[in-house]
């Protein structure tokens, strides 16, 4: 079903972080951008459509708006808004937002770091854009807060508009509704280390729609598609929930080890999962309109021998190609459908 393509070499290997791969396809320029986090650096590669030309850039973590830092970067992700695309980096010190090609940093937000160091690590993690009733970027923190930034159409006048406090454990991932249809009420889902999921409606004041309780396992990656919450857990299980009612649609014993990454291809309903067990799996979600049931079927498995997968992303909205990163691997492995 899928064939492995030539890998893209990156300047340093991938750190063992959740969701450690972000992909931005730029259809008009026939380019695809990739980012992979390694310690205090983000390796950015832009690949030409023919797969022949690559250009590399490295972004570093900052302390304040100027000084380079050795603080670790926890996640890097593009946020696609109607008017602009921003690249957001979260670290142990704060949040950095860049223009999409990483050329200019437009915003820096410092995390509240307690004066007396406590046992608990301080960092930001979980990045998603929300576009209903305004343009926002949501970023999670290790305290469980979700920071909501209001983003202007252009320029650097980004402001922190709200802080959402419904989680008590470090945020692991935040996702936005990926379906192009406007019918779905839920806009954002946030997940944390305990496995709790919160469903939100975006706006001037974000509204908590539902809390889906943890079942005993950490949720490392979450996606939202057509009102369905797709959550990947440390137990290796994937669960599908209804975003508004919280009802479980499906439970999949998907992987033998901790899931590190999930991605959804919104145009086809294909789901991609990557875990520490070295396997990458493709699933297909379908909604039956009459019975309102959601089904999921397994389509394909790829084994990246002896590699703990830490990032997995589709490269296009149909899901005809995907890319994968592995811990301590200095390449982005790519697959295309045959």
């Amino acid at each position, binding site marked *: 079903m899928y064939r492995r393509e030539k890998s893209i070499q990156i300047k340093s290997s991938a750190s063992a972080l959740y969701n450690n791969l972000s992909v931005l396809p730029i259809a008009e320029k026939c380019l695809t951008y990739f980012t992979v986090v390694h310690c205090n650096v983000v390796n950015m590669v832009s690949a030409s459509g023919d797969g022949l030309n690559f250009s590399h850039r490295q972004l570093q973590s900052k302390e304040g708006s100027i000084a380079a830092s050795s603080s670790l970067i926890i996640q890097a992700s593009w946020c696609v808004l109607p008017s602009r695309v921003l690249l957001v980096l979260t670290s142990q010190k704060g949040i950095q937002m860049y223009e999409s090609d990483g050329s200019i940093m437009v915003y820096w937000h410092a995390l509240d770091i307690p004066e007396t160091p406590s046992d608990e690590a301080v960092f930001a993690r979980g990045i998603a854009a929300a576009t209903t009733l305004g343009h926002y970027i949501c970023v999670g923190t290790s305290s469980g807060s979700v920071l909501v930034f209001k983003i202007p159409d252009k320029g650097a006048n980004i402001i922190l508009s709200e802080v959402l406090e419904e989680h008590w454990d470090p945020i692991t991932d935040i996702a936005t509704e990926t379906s192009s249809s406007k019918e779905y009420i839920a806009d954002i889902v946030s997940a944390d280390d305990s496995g709790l999921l919160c469903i939100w409606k975006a706006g001037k004041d974000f509204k908590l729609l539902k809390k889906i309780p943890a079942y005993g396992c950490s949720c490392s990656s979450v996606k939202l598609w057509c009102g369905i919450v797709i959550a990947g857990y440390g137990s290796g299980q994937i669960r599908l929930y209804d975003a508004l009612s919280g009802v479980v649609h499906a439970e999949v014993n998907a992987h*033998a080890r901790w899931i590190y990454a999930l991605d959804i291809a919104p145009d086809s309903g294909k789901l991609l999962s990557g875990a520490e067990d070295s396997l990458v799996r493709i699933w297909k979600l379908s909604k039956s309109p009459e019975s309102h049931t959601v089904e999921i079927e397994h389509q394909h498995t790829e084994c990246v021998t002896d590699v703990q997968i830490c990032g997995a992303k589709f490269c296009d909205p149909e899901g005809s190609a995907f890319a994968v990163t592995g811990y*301590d691997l200095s390449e982005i492995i790519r697959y295309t459908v045959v």
Partner: protein
Amino acid sequence: MCLFWRLTLQTDRHCRSLGCLESRKVSIFLKDKVQNSNGRFVLPTSGPVPYGTQIPGLIRMFNCNGDEVKKSEFPNGGNYTSPLQEGSFDLYGGRVLKLGTNMYSVSRPVETHMSGTSKSSASHAKENAAPNPLAKEELNLLARLMGHLEVKKTTGSESGFRVNLFSTDEEEEEAAILRPSEFSYQFINIQATQDQQSNEELARIMGEFKEEDSVSQSPCSKGDDLLAMMDGL
């Protein structure tokens, strides 16, 4: 409790693994086939899944009332077996995992002493009651080295001390089998009793000890005397 430990281990692993492995090869890992010659650690797609994880392959689908309406299976691409038991977090108990054990030990035990069972508590009590038989021998050796004990040869060979740098006799034998034959053996002789200078020094120190207690005539009880002296200190 289990979630807390797994999270702690995972966070711990994140913090430590955020650096590079740099493909360092460790000989015992290579020998045990835990690491490849390219430096990557072996991630088997077979064997037991961890406690808390199910064997991959089952999909269960539910309706809005929570009733299971469909079940399907998919090939998991591996050869997984049932989850491991949960290890004990008590002071004594089976840990199940090898984490924390000595990776250089041949037998690699995973059990700690079980003080709860009647069988072991009996042996525990027995151990406490009987003095360590080696202690007396060790003190006799000390006394002999200090030059104040007549060597009384028992029938058969001298029961001296044999130094074993491994944890058990089996490990020593195993290492001897594995030892490449091209390495030659070198014997080092240590003559602890015959160095005149050190003997005088020891005699002087021994003299400082001889204060109150009367010296017993039986050579074998020198060990007892030293024991009593040390207890008195």
